[in-house]
């Protein structure tokens, strides 16, 4: 066993010498190559005399140097002449901007990105409004092996009946296990931007004319302390630079810090420093369906894991307060099990899901139960206010055996009452409270001629 100080003293100079020798060898080879070119050039015909235009350019060329910084006067011009922001998909993917999606593990961020990539590539209506035209998308998953990426896209293609023709040559997928997407690295005391990697990504996006780059997950694109704001800012800056220089939208998928599992995830819950959120023009958050939401939306509690919603956690360019979009995992079997009895890998594919409306919930109540509710309400004075002791909802609860001590269940009853009122099965009437002698609203059964 040897002391590390001794090892460093012995090995470091040796390594330095080896690398320097290699470099010197390369330099000698480069000098030799230049000499060969010079000899070949000497044998070539003499150059043409410069024309007047060339002479002018020459004069200009000799002044090339560092560009001085200038303050540019602002000119107010017709707004119609200003280029419109180029929203590529929804209000989240914007050309020349970096966006991010935050979510807890298992929340479906990656699977969601896969379906979004297919929606953008095919131009089909898979999740929300399709893009104006099919886009060229590069999905770079820095963690999963290539075959896992292939499984996910294949499963989504099966579910949505997407053919190779629909994809064309517009989809690109890569795994970080085969090529590194690390753009910033920390090496002891230095934070190094891996310029060759960044330049290479930009060059590839330009060469392939890619519109959208999805990088999943952000944490795999750097090797710096993720809690250090200035370092994470440098990482985020590289992706902003990619979006800007390559003229594409960059989407970063990011994990959130560990939560207790009960709280709502917000854009402030991203793992590590907050600089990523601050650099992104749009941040979405992915939240799983809570027990309360499952109950009020009529989803069995044991199925709640299959549902999640995507909402804007920070949107510099989209209207605030937008409604969340619900998504649902649909299991898809790839059929790669090699036999009739083995369906092969099961993959969760993200689909759009619309929560049942109050009318949908009301339609699930049997006609005889509704008749019983109406008969009971017609026979008494039942208030519309859910806080009232004689709330009409208690009648509904009794007939349908619903426990009103649970808040989600009370919400469900409120939605049922609203649906029946909207459908004309019940009505609201303002009249004098027989006890307190003040105006109150009551739920009543309307008097139709046929009743």
């Amino acid at each position, binding site marked *: 066993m040897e002391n590390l*100080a001794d090892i460093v003293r012995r*090995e*470091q100079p040796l*390594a330095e010498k080896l*690398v320097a020798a290699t470099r010197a060898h390369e330099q000698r080879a480069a000098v030799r190559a230049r000499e060969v070119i010079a000899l070949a050039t000497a044998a070539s015909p003499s150059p043409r005399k410069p024309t007047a235009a060339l002479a002018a350019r020459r004069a200009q060329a000799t002044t090339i140097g560092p560009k001085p910084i200038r303050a540019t006067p602002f000119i107010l011009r017709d707004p119609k002449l200003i280029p419109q922001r180029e929203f590529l998909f929804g209000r989240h993917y914007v050309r020349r901007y970096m966006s991010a999606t935050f979510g807890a*593990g298992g929340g479906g961020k990656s699977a969601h990105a896969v379906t979004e990539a297919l929606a953008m590539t095919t131009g089909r209506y898979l999740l929300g409004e399709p893009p104006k035209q099919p886009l060229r998308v590069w999905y770079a998953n820095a963690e999963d092996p290539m075959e896992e990426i292939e499984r996910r896209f294949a499963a989504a293609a099966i579910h949505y009946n997407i053919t190779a023709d629909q994809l064309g040559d517009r989809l690109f997928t890569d795994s970080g296990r085969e090529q590194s997407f690390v753009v910033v690295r920390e090496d002891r005391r230095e934070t190094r931007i891996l310029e*060759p990697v960044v330049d290479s990504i930009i060059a590839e996006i330009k060469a392939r004319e890619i519109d959208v780059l999805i990088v999943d997950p952000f*944490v795999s694109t750097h090797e710096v302390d993720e809690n250090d704001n200035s370092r994470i800012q440098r990482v985020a800056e590289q992706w902003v630079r990619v979006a800007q220089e390559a003229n594409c939208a960059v989407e970063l998928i990011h994990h959130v810090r560990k939560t207790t599992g009960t709280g709502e995830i917000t854009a402030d819950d991203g793992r590590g420093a907050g600089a990523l959120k601050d650099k992104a023009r749009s941040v979405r958050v992915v939240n799983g369906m809570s027990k309360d939401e499952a109950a009020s939306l009529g989803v069995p509690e044991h199925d709640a894991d299959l549902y999640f919603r995507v909402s804007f956690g920070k949107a510099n360019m989209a209207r605030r307060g937008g409604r969340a979009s619900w998504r649902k995992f649909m299991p898809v079997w790839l059929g790669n099990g090699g036999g009739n009895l083995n369906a092969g890998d099961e993959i969760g594919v993200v689909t759009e899901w619309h929560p049942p409306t109050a009318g949908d919930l009301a339609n699930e109540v049997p006609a005889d139960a509704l008749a019983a509710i109406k008969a009971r309400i017609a026979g008494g004075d039942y208030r519309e206010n859910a806080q009232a002791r004689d709330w009409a909802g208690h009648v509904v609860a009794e007939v349908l055996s619903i426990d009103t001590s649970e808040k989600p269940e009370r919400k469900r009853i409120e939605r049922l009452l609203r649906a029946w009122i909207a459908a004309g099965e019940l009505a609201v009437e303002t009249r004098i409270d027989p006890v307190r002698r003040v105006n109150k609203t009551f739920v009543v059964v309307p008097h139709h001629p046929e009743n």
Partner: protein
Amino acid sequence: MNISEKSSTAAEILARFDPESYDDDRLERFLTTDDAGAGIEFLRDEGIDPAPVLAAVGAVKLLNTSNSTALYRPELDHSGTGVVHEFANNGPPAIAFPIIEDGRFVDLLLIGTNDFSFDTLLGETCWLGRDALTSATVRLHKHPLDWLDAGCTGVCHIAPFSRAEFAEFRGVERIECSDIHLAMEVLGWAFDGDEDELKRFFIDDEPQNIREFFLQEEQFKAEVARINAERTKPHEPVDWTRSIEELVRGY
């Protein structure tokens, strides 16, 4: 977590652990699984003496797991390696054993028997053998199987995505390690790369690995220096007296 008697043996700690006190039924599954010695058999196959392991952790069991990445759940991927081990009725087997810290049963470590990937069940700790970090001399193991092989002595860092915990080495006077890369990471993260702290580290890695490590480091430094030099190089004025062919060659 209901046990906090440091003097208890691992088996006693395990026997008295009440899984009901922790809101996760996977621990109960581990405790109630009848392993019939398969975990011990795995250790023997790997050339690991089971006796000191059992004394240190109380039990080693072989369980079926599911490490499907179909619905990959990063919150369960405590190691950050992209592999999640969950108990399941079918799937690749993994050995599981309790992680005990300060006389308490804090988590389970699972090691896949097919690829030796590992992860904690609950993400409650980043270490195997964390108690050893209070010693003057500590051996740092690269992989949990190395830690088991050493009779559960020394420490093993089991959360590769995070290195902040390396700061816990600051109180250790002598750090022994058989992996030069890991040792240098500890130097960087625990001691801010301070060369004066090199003397704390004692390495018994293969000479070839050590040489390769330093060579790669130097190559990386040289590459960064070359790129930075190119980026900061001022534009040279174009010499228009040269022929077009020369200009093309020059670029």
